[in-house]
């Protein structure tokens, strides 16, 4: 066929001419539909040389915007991948740890092979003496070899990811999403992360090969939190001999996690307050000024915490669906692809936010997922960079059905009890653990397949519209295909099981109330009239006390998912004084600040001393630079509007 010889823009020209002919032929809408030239959404079908996207003016090589990605006309053709679990290593025998034992003090000797220190870390691990590591892991960051995200796109060569730890990146290639780290409370953990990223200029023109891996949102010391910058560890210097937060090619960084709950050195020795148990975390890059491009490029993965309550075995504890067969992590990442090359694209000059037009889950575009007829737990994460999602379960064969599922955790914190919902709203970095009972749904609704459908409309980085698409008209992220019935001993959320108790959040306990006004001034993001500053922490919190933080959105109609490191908070009020909705009566670490919102948070700051950030988690806003640093020290200050 001669059409195969044409380049995409020639194709666009043909498409445009064809469409003009249709208009000239005065075909009515009904005729177009009967001829199969219209999709059910009312767009011209991408066939017969009529691609609506190819004919959109301005879509040429280099255009990285919604509507320009090569169209995906065949969803649900590949299964949803589940990232492998990062293998544990024996610190006594695994070669990496034999050659370079993981010490409390960082390994700052100069590596003769690179000329810079072996390890990027400059601080010792706080409380490591009290919690000596028992589980050890290694992973290496590098370029992901050519990978398929969908048969209608070329093999992707611009992704970066994490491998399973091996030194040979050919035999053990980096993956995106990265491998899932699985750890348990009570077993302190050390993870050695290597930067084996390629030297710049980076593929696709985005990504920088310095990294800082943040465990979102574990109760971590500053030495292992993986934050963006810290004035006590070199600020934003790129001198490898001074920088102690992000690290360079050829270096490693040992991250240490106590696997204790918050409060272990503040009223709840020795293992912390059990009601501060976290379940679903994720890890992602946090390199200052370049977080958006690096995370978008693929540097993200899950970290699952099990405990005596959330055991991973549906026969014990809270009897949540057994991991890994029925406990599935899902990271949602919307992306853009270059119309001419079909490769992942990112506009590093964008300031507002990136809203993608192609929807990936666990790294594949619109996959399907086979499920048995029983309950599953899905750990759903909005991986960003900017989109808000409102997720529904839609029966493609009966769009009008309103199908319930249960939320059991918010931002990785188990709720006091499950909440039945028909939809859930996520902003960037929020997590919801949900239970979908495919057996009950099959019985009650006669469904044999279900879409996880995003019905929230969003066109730019300012935030979502107030508009929901009707069932079947939204973005279909995954198609669940319901199979045979199998044994299910997991707890039925409709029986109202009790999970954890929320820690108290009494206003009277707060030592101080601080206000933070998020503003936009001449296109710059400011908090209390001040801008980002890696050279100083803005205020001092007193260790082992509580504070009330008031977040006020005064940014002229922009919505922001605000994230605070170190601790989980509880929302006291939203929307100028209202109690939060039931689903947000939870410990959380990301809070959606609505258009003209005013939110009061209660937060304790325990155990560790150091500097952490608060920032917007729309990663493009974060980079430009909606962020401040705070310090936790023995003596706090009294700045109410820092």
């Amino acid at each position, binding site marked *: 066929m001669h059409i195969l010889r044409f380049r995409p823009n020639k194709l666009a020209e043909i498409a445009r001419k064809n469409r003009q002919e249709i208009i000239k032929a005065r075909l009515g809408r009904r005729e177009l539909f009967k001829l199969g030239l219209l999709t059910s959404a009312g767009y011209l079908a991408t066939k017969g040389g009529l691609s609506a996207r190819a004919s959109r003016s301005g879509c040429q090589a280099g255009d990285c915007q919604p509507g320009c990605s090569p169209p995906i006309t065949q969803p649900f053709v590949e299964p949803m991948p589940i990232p492998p679990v990062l293998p544990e290593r024996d610190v006594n025998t695994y070669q990496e740890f034999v050659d370079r034992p993981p010490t409390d003090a960082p390994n700052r000797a100069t590596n003769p092979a690179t000329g810079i220190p072996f390890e990027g870390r400059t601080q010792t691990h706080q409380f490591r003496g009290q919690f000596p590591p028992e589980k050890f892991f290694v992973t290496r960051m590098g370029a992901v070899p050519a990978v398929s995200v969908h048969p209608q796109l*070329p093999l992707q060569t611009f992704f970066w990811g994490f491998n399973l730890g091996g030194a040979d990146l050919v035999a053990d290639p980096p993956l995106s999403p990265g491998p899932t780290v699985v750890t348990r409370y009570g077993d302190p953990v050390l993870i050695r992360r290597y930067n084996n990223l390629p030297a710049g200029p980076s593929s696709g023109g985005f990504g920088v090969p310095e990294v800082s891996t943040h465990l979102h949102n574990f109760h971590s010391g500053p030495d292992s939190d993986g934050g963006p910058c810290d004035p006590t560890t070199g600020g934003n210097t790129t001198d490898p001999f001074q920088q102690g937060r992000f690290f360079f090619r050829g270096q490693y960084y040992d991250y240490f996690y106590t696997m204790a709950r918050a409060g272990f050195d503040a009223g709840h020795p020795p293992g912390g307050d059990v009601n501060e148990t976290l379940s679903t975390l994720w890890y992602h890059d946090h390199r200052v000024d370049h977080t958006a491009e690096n995370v978008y490029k693929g540097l993200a993965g899950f970290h699952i915490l099990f405990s005596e309550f959330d055991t991973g075995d549906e026969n014990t504890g809270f009897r949540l669906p057994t991991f890994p067969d029925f406990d599935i992590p899902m990271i949602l990442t919307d992306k853009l692809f270059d119309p001419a090359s079909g490769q992942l694209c990112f506009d590093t000059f964008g300031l507002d936010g990136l809203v993608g037009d192609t929807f990936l889950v666990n790294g594949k575009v619109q996959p399907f997922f086979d499920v048995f007829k029983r309950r599953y737990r899905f750990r759903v994460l909005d991986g960003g960079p900017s989109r808000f999602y409102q997720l529904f379960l839609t029966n493609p064969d009966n769009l009008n059905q309103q199908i319930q599922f249960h939320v059991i955790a918010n931002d990785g914190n188990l709720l006091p009890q499950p909440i039945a919902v028909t939809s859930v709203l996520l902003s960037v970095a929020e997590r919801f653990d949900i239970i979908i009972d495919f057996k009950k749904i099959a019985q009650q609704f006669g469904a044999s397949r279900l879409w996880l459908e995003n019905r929230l409309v969003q066109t730019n980085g300012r935030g979502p519209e107030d508009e929901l698409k009707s069932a079947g008209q939204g973005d279909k992220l995954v198609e669940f295909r319901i199979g045979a019935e199998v044994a299910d001993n997991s707890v039925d959320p409709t029986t109202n099981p009790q999970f954890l108790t929320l820690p108290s959040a009494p206003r009277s306990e707060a030592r101080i109330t601080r206000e933070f006004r998020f503003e936009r001034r*001449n296109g710059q993001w400011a908090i209390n009239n001040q801008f980002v500053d890696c050279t100083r922490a803005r205020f001092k919190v007193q260790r082992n006390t509580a504070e009330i933080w008031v977040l006020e959105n005064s940014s002229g109609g922009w919505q922001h998912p605000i994230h605070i490191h170190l601790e989980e908070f509880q929302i006291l009020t939203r929307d100028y004084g209202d109690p939060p909705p039931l689903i947000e009566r939870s410990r959380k670490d990301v809070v959606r600040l609505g258009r003209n919102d005013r939110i009061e948070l209660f937060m304790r700051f325990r155990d560790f001393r150091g500097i952490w950030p608060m920032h917007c988690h729309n990663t493009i806003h974060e980079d430009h*630079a909606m962020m401040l640093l705070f310090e936790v020290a023995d003596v706090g200050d009294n700045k109410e509007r820092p």
Partner: protein
Amino acid sequence: MVGITRRAWLATCGLAPLAGGLAAWITNNKGPEQRRGWQTTEPRELVRQRHFPNVELITQEGRKVLYYDDLIKDKKVVLNLMYVKCRGICVPVTANLVRVQKLLREHGRNDIFFYSITLKPEEDTPEALKQYAEAHGVGPGWWFLTGKPADIELIRRRLRFVDLDPVVDADKSSHIGMIRFGNEPMLRWVACPGQANPEHIFKTMLWELT
């Protein structure tokens, strides 16, 4: 397809030979996919095409320069927007950048070029820009640029110094206060608030533009 009658179009649609061809073109990209209609652009070229139109500008010395070829290519640069009569945001941002440039030069970094582009090319002649530069005490290697209004607007859009709200965007007195700086050959670009602490900006630039 050109010149086809309605009847003929309806008759041929069922065959959909083009549909098959298009579908084949889209799906036949496994294996040596780069040769099957997918065209990759080298990343530096991609960034250049997307962000740096090679338009002609005039410096405050009256010299004609090409935006990409003469100002950006192979260089480490800092870019901001301003205009001479701007009483608001330009004042603190320019003052900050003067301070930052001093700190950089004191640190031995004379290899970073500063470019301030006027949003009012109809008003701001090279002479006016030169006076502005002298009044602010800018150091060497800092060009104030004007040009054709349509070209300036193109530069602004390609720098993404645009407000989503068209009313705000049209108001030049509320123009964007971000500064953008980068190392062009390394394809590393950062944008930060022009009003941020100059010490913070200096340190970021010093080390980002190595």
